[in-house]
């Protein structure tokens, strides 16, 4: 068999999840065309089925560790690395996609654009494909392409409800900002390629180990590339798009961007830094990086800037979506600290944090969406007295917010606890204290919502807000894990512990 063809066929066994997603992308488009204008409510269920199958394949290959799409001209490195680390993030992406599709079913905003449902779900699948490639690609070209695939899909999704001015503005800002960021990143990639002569990060690592390169150009290229990652995980100072886009986009999409796209960005950032710059891993789990760039200081500065800015800006927000946008910036800040530790323990902390963050953040957005469905507003003043009108929703939102703050007995506490343990273990006490103080600040704006819901008198005398049976089930699916993982978190910890291995390291 011809060599290129052989590589393709050899890779199929490792790419089943991605192939399934692509297949369902096509199915969704086709079914949409066949159905015409009617019966579109079947589309979300097809999507769910697709996600379940994909999830099955991911779990099936969870322990695999191999290259797919091998190019033997550069020492048998492939374009894609299949490993448990990537698979963990794929699971997070699939899990959050399932929830987002469930959200979309009950979202009024999405329902209003009923005739374009086909586009909506196929765009989501496009995004999923892009994100799954992001978490596993090890070649700069593929990295760039997958980021672009995710970005392009999310630009459209952010402006999905065309008639709303706020939506279109968000989408347009997102596109302009995103293009600039990706342009800068591409520039950095081209410089890096110019120095190294290869685009595969494993091969770059080999070159770096040999030590023949121009340091200034390397630093410039890496910082430029970081712009692209920073844009995806909304780290300061690349976060500017986040509040505007989160506020403008449909809530379901906002929630999606805050979890899945951020998770993919983090996976990519961790993989890029670890694989490219690693020298060795000590027996205690600490990494020795090549001394070419002071990544540690760099990440600490970025992280402290990100969490401080996110928390302080969130203090003054009166729109809940915007507040949650800033809060998600702050959370990205905490998680960058987990990477800055440069140890397996830190990575484990990030993995745990993401799993926990998935439930609590999606939960908060879900409640905000359900309330917005009924009262048509996300302003904090309109939440006055909500605790009496709809106790279940208000209490759930309270639990999610308390969990986001990181108080026991909720899962959020566990996420933060492991993060701080990793920091203290690495003797980064000062940084840990700064992060802790940031948490204190965050308590203020989270609890402010509780104050409005439970202590303020309702402005209007409207009756109770009832929620549907299906919505209650989804809510419970998010709420129960927040409690259960707060009390019995060994399963997540074990899963995360088994998932810290990147291919080769």
């Amino acid at each position, binding site marked *: 068999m011809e060599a290129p063809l052989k590589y393709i066929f050899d890779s199929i066994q490792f790419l089943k999840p991605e192939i399934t997603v692509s297949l369902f992308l096509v199915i969704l488009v086709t079914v949409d065309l066949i159905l015409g204008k009617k019966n579109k409510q079947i589309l979300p269920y097809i999507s769910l089925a697709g996600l379940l199958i994909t999830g099955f394949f991911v779990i099936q290959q969870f322990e695999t560790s191999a290259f797919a799409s091998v190019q033997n001209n550069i020492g048998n490195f492939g374009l894609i690395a299949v490993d448990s680390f990537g698979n963990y993030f794929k699971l997070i992406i699939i899990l959050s996609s399932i929830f987002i599709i469930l959200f979309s079913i009950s979202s009024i905003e999405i329902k209003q654009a009923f005739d374009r449902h086909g586009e909506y779900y196929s765009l989501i699948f496009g995004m999923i494909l892009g994100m799954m490639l992001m978490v596993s690609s090890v070649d700069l070209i593929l990295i760039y392409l997958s980021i672009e695939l995710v970005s392009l899909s999310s630009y459209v999704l952010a402006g999905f409800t065309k008639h709303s001015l706020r939506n279109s503005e968000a989408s347009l800002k997102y596109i302009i900002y995103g293009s600039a960021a990706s342009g800068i990143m591409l520039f950095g990639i081209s410089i890096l390629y110019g120095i190294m002569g290869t685009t595969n990060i494993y091969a770059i690592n080999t070159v770096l180990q040999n030590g023949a390169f121009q340091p200034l150009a390397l630093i*410039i290229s890496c910082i430029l590339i970081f712009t692209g990652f920073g844009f995806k995980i909304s780290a300061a*100072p690349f976060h500017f798009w986040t509040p505007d886009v989160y506020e403008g986009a449909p809530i379901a999409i906002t929630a999606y961007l805050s979890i899945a796209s951020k998770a993919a960005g983090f996976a990519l950032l961790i993989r890029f830094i670890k694989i490219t710059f690693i020298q060795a891993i000590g027996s205690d789990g600490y990494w020795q990086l090549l001394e070419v*760039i002071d990544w540690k200081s760099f990440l600490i500065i970025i992280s402290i800037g990100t969490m401080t800015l996110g928390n302080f800006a969130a203090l003054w927000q009166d729109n809940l979506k915007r507040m949650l946008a800033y809060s998600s910036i702050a959370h990205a800040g905490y998680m960058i600290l987990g990477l800055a530790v440069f140890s397996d323990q830190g990575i484990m902390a990030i993995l745990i944090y993401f799993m926990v963050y998935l439930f609590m953040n999606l939960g908060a957005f879900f409640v905000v969406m359900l309330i917005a469905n009924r009262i048509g507003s996300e302003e904090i003043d309109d939440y006055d007295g909500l605790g009496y009108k709809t106790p279940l929703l208000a209490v759930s939102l309270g639990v999610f917010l308390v969990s986001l703050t990181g108080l026991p007995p909720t899962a959020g506490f566990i996420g933060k606890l492991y993060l701080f343990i990793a920091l203290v273990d690495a003797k980064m006490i000062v940084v840990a204290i700064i992060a802790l103080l940031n948490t204190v600040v965050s308590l203020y704006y989270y609890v402010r919502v509780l104050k409005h819901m439970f202590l303020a008198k309702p402005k209007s005398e409207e009756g109770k807000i009832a929620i549907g049976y299906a919505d209650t089930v989804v809510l419970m699916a998010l709420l129960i894990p927040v409690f259960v993982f707060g009390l019995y978190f060994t399963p997540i910890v074990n899963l995360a512990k088994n998932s810290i291995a990147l291919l080769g390291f």
Partner: protein
Amino acid sequence: MDLITLSVIILFIPLLGFILTLFAGMKFKWAFLIENVLIVLGFILSVVLLYTKLSGYLDENIVSEFNWINFGVVPFFGEIIVKLGIKLDNVAVIMNFTVFLISMVVHLFSIDYMKGDKRYNRYFAYLGIFTFSMTGIVFTHNVLMMYIFWELVGLSSYLLIGFWFEKKSASDASKKAFIVNRIGDLGMFAGILMLFVTYKTFSFQEIFNAIGAGQLPFNSEFWLTITGLLLFCGAIGKSAQFPLHVWLPDAMEGPTPVSALIHAATMVAAGVYFIVRIFPILTGDALLVIGIIGAISAFIPATIALTQNDIKRVLAYSTVSQLGYMIMALGIGAYVFAFFHLITHAFFKACLFLGSGSVIHSMHHEQDIQKMGGLRKKMPVTYATFLLATLALSGIPLTSGFLSKDGILAGTLAYTSLTGNWFFTFIGFTVAALTAFYMFRLVILTFHGEPKNKEKYDHAHESPFLMIMPLILLSGLSIFIWYTPNPFNADSGWVLSKWVKAPTIVTPESARYSFMVEEPKEGSINNHEEVTFSHEYTHAMHSAHVPTIFLSGFVAGLGILFALLFYQWKKLDADKLAAKIKPLYNLSYNKWYFDEFYNTVFVGGTLAFSNFLRWFDNTIIDGIVNGSAALTRGLSKVSGRFDSSVVDGLVNFMAYFSGFIGLFIRKLQTGKVQTYIVLVIFSLLILLFLFKSF
């Protein structure tokens, strides 16, 4: 199904009942049926568990555990792995059976007793969460879970005592119970932390093994004693031992079936059960302290019960006294008899409480025994069962109470012959006499003689079937035949010869009682001797056995005789005697002035201290303040100048500056995407500049 799964199901059935009944109870009137059906189901499963364990796995300890928290290696401490789990030994399954049996009959009893209450369903939900918490205590294999369920039991007790919280006395009693318990729990928590810091584990078995291997807290036997006593503090609170016994009589403000379930049979026995669990780590010194506390708690309430007139309070003081008996028995090493007495006492005391509930129910909430009398004709079944349980409590032969009490008294005699210490023997027999006296006083005043309140007497009636049935069941369990074929020797019965055995002591030999040092050898002992620690102790027990039977029969008979002389035949006049020994009578009638003492010393002390603080504040502090005010006035003129020009200038500048920064930050998020991109480029340049030098 294996036993562990079965026990987990048994554990969670009452919790399920709690949740379902609580939420369904808001909408449906019949929600209490859920709880009742589930508790009967739980009881049936408990019987299955008991039977399977005792028939198939008699000598095995079935343990199952899982990692609850695994922090791995933590900086500054070492490895932290917290395991939760279940340990099924004979003690646990027997105790579980007892809890479920009594819980079930109390549920059934309450269906009629609580009828018409406005929070009917909630009452049953509370019973459910109590049963859940109690089962957790019984099954746990580690001391942390014990503590968690311990607090849950405290919570459910609080909820149930204050169930009629509109009554001020009830809500006060629930607060008192909760706070007094917290004092004991504080010590227990400290003890648990000592164990965890030393052994890095909460599991009973692992702690025992570590101590057996010679590892001690701070490497000293003294600290092991302290740890044991700290843990015992928890039992002092929960089992209402001296000096924290004051909450239990007040807890009688709760509904009477609750008193039967929680404050007689199960929860208050949790303290004894806890000591049974940690018995192997208690040193001789610790046991001696425990024994003395138990003896005091057995004696004082017994004297108080002599003069009380509230039917439930007499029973409450009797409960404290009997719990003290068990604790004392543990303290002198009569481990098996302590546990045996725990079980037999649970049955007949629950019967007595439910019987008193039946009386109170038919007398329209009259609780004063001086206003009762003659009820035996109106309520024959209640009378018969009450009498039978009273005989058991007094320790009359052919009852279960005789078997267990006799064992404890023989234990005190054996202890005396081994150590020469007469204290426990004296207390043991005195309390036995007092118990017989006050119980018969109660029976005679309530059921015999002429009715004192004619109107209420005429309305009295026998209780309905659902209230009678539990009484018959429980009084039936007060007969010896369920425990041993020989009514005079409990050792030959299956409970003591096969099911419950003294554990292996793990404390260092130098720290034990001398008679516990020699381990019983495997095989060389026949069944009759396995209730004990060493040959020496066995012989002492045997030679104490026969004298005890006669002696205890004699003192109990004496107590009953005096009760009859005073109240039935009126040969002696109780009032005259009371007048003659007025100070002693007052001491007993006023409960040894414990509440007054605590009120004066602790509550009053706190108040006095805060009054002192107020005085201190008013005179000294204010004086200083006033004095300095004059000084300040002078200074202020100077500083005023400084303030208005320099400080204000600075503050204003800061405010202006912060405002400027705020403005700047807000300017950053302009909403204009062009600005954002410029900012990104700008910050990129800064980053490049920062890191270029590396």
